[in-house]
């Protein structure tokens, strides 16, 4: 390709980027910045799709950005080549460009003014098709179609499901007395505001079906636990006992919540039904017991307690018995979150005066500190277990950071309109 063509394409990209910025609500959009990537990234070529060129650009740019952001893929330059799912690839050409995988597709008109996105994925070295799919979509849902295609490509090439179609919840402090609970796509786009309050909101937790969020709101001058249905905006008070009510965590079957109540004195872990009925106390000592988190099989609760003199992580069965200490290194280990496969635990550990994201392999009890920051908080696993999203601080402002379990891949999500905090990564979008 000539220098001129490259320049032209670059200008076209710039023009498209400027257009995209105009469409984006300036306030409250997360921007994602990749600050580290995997060592051996798979080279992938995403050709321009056939059909409507503007629609194709939206879909292919989403696919490329998603794959690139994961830190596992390197985008191979396609020189603007247009290929549909029906085009026979010239594998030798793609091999010489260095691509291991190639995707091609089209955006076509479907019934009722809807659109159909089709694509096919190829293994360039084996010269075979790895699969393909078709989605009926609409102009406004083209980004979602791109995320779905990126999820399939990710799964075909890594063997694990992708999380590009999932959503994240987080809290924005937009002013001295303005707190907002946001729900955005995993790439930070399409942020929607679920709740605005003059008082703090903390500890959002997704129901396993992805339809509801439990959280703690201070709107009544004390912490109260709510369950908020996202589609309807309907809110149910799940725990508003005398004293403080906090730290909600859903059971994997979505029928119960672990919460922390101070109604009997101290901070004790209880199980309540999702409608707030049937509170059952699990911890009975006088120490602090908080931050419960279910194991994926629903049989155990991990939690933070200072019963041994310093805050450490413990585990008990869901009847409250068989308590075991889990963390031993250091004097401050808090906020346990168990990975979806039940093998790892993300937590925050104080090391050299800094609060740092750490991961423990639960079988070997081996701990790896993943960051060198000072103010990591509130870890939350991606539903495929590959990344952990945390709140941290950058230049005095709250930002979110996604870190891969090996610590190599790092993305930073920040917002121009204020402090971002309290992330919660939602479940797979089924």
């Amino acid at each position: 390709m000539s220098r001129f063509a490259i320049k032209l394409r670059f200008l076209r990209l710039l023009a498209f980027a400027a257009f995209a910025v105009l469409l984006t609500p300036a306030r409250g959009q997360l921007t994602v910045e990749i600050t580290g990537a995997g060592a051996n990234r798979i080279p992938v070529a995403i050709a321009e799709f056939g059909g409507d060129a503007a629609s194709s650009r939206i879909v292919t740019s989403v696919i490329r950005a998603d794959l690139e952001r994961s830190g596992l893929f390197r985008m191979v330059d396609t020189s603007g080549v247009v290929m549909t799912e029906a085009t026979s690839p010239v594998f030798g050409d793609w091999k010489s460009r260095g691509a291991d995988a190639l995707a091609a597709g089209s955006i076509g008109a479907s019934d009722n003014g809807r659109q159909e996105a089709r694509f096919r994925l190829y293994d360039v070295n084996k010269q075979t098709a790895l699969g393909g799919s078709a989605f009926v979509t609409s102009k406004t849902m083209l980004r979602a179609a791109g995320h779905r295609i990126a999820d399939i490509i990710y799964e075909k090439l890594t063997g694990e499901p992708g999380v590009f179609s999932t959503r994240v919840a987080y809290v924005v402090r937009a002013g001295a007395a303005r707190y907002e609970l946001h729900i955005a796509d995993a790439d930070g786009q399409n942020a929607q505001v679920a709740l605005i309050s003059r008082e703090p909101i903390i500890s959002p937790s997704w129901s396993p079906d992805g339809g509801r969020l439990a959280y703690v709101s201070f709107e009544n001058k004390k912490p109260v636990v709510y369950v908020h249905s996202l589609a309807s905006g309907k809110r149910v008070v799940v725990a508003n006992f005398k004293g403080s009510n906090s730290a909600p965590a859903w059971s994997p079957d979505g029928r119960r919540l672990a919460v922390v109540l101070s109604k009997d004195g101290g901070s004790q872990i209880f199980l309540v039904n999702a409608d707030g009925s049937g509170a059952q106390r699990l911890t009975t000592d006088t120490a602090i017991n908080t931050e419960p988190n279910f194991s994926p099989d629903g049989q155990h609760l991990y939690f933070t307690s200072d019963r041994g003199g310093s805050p450490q992580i413990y585990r008990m069965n869901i009847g409250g018995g068989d308590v075991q200490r889990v963390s031993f290194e250091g004097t401050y280990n808090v906020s346990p979150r168990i990975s979806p496969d039940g093998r790892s635990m993300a937590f925050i550990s104080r090391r050299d005066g800094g609060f740092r994201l750490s991961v423990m392999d639960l079988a070997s009890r081996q701990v790896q500190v993943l960051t060198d920051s000072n103010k990591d908080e509130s870890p939350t696993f991606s539903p495929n277990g590959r990344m952990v999203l945390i709140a941290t601080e950058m230049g005095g402002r709250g930002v979110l950071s996604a870190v891969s379990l090996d610590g190599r891949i790092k993305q930073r999500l920040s917002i121009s309109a204020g402090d971002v905090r309290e992330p919660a990564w939602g479940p797979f979008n089924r």
Partner: protein
Amino acid sequence: MKRLVIPATLALLIAACSSTPEGGDQSGAPVESRAGGPSVATVTTGGVDGGRLPAVLTDPKSILSKRSVYFDYDSYEVKAEYKDLVTAHAKFLTENRQFRMLIQGNTDERGSREYNLALGQKRADAIKKMMALLGAREDQLEAVSLGEEKPKNEGHGEAAWAENRRGDMLYSGEF
């Protein structure tokens, strides 16, 4: 128990207040002029129908206008210097059974938000326990925590943190 010494004017004020009905409805109540300055302060808090508090709770000269107990790092012990303050509030509650108190525990910003909420609860519980021992009734008291969420001083560093390791005592109408 250590005997509390209250200035004579304050004792009179407390006596005057103890006979008045609950806040907001005291237009006819006698106001002790010896306290000086404006007799009652109007408390306005969002969402609460601003009940007027008796002067003794708001007059800067009254010990009862002081509402904060400060704590050492990683400590939930009410320090000796705050015992007179807590005792005065316990006495007020004992003599004014119609009043309720919300005790809000706070922490500095370091560490986990939920763990800090539990630490703040310990501080609020410590103040509440002392109040109860001094005669305030359980149904007059509620101890809650705001954790690190509502810092009095938004700065970072020991001076700001010390201001934020705190328990605040609020009366009916103030919360």
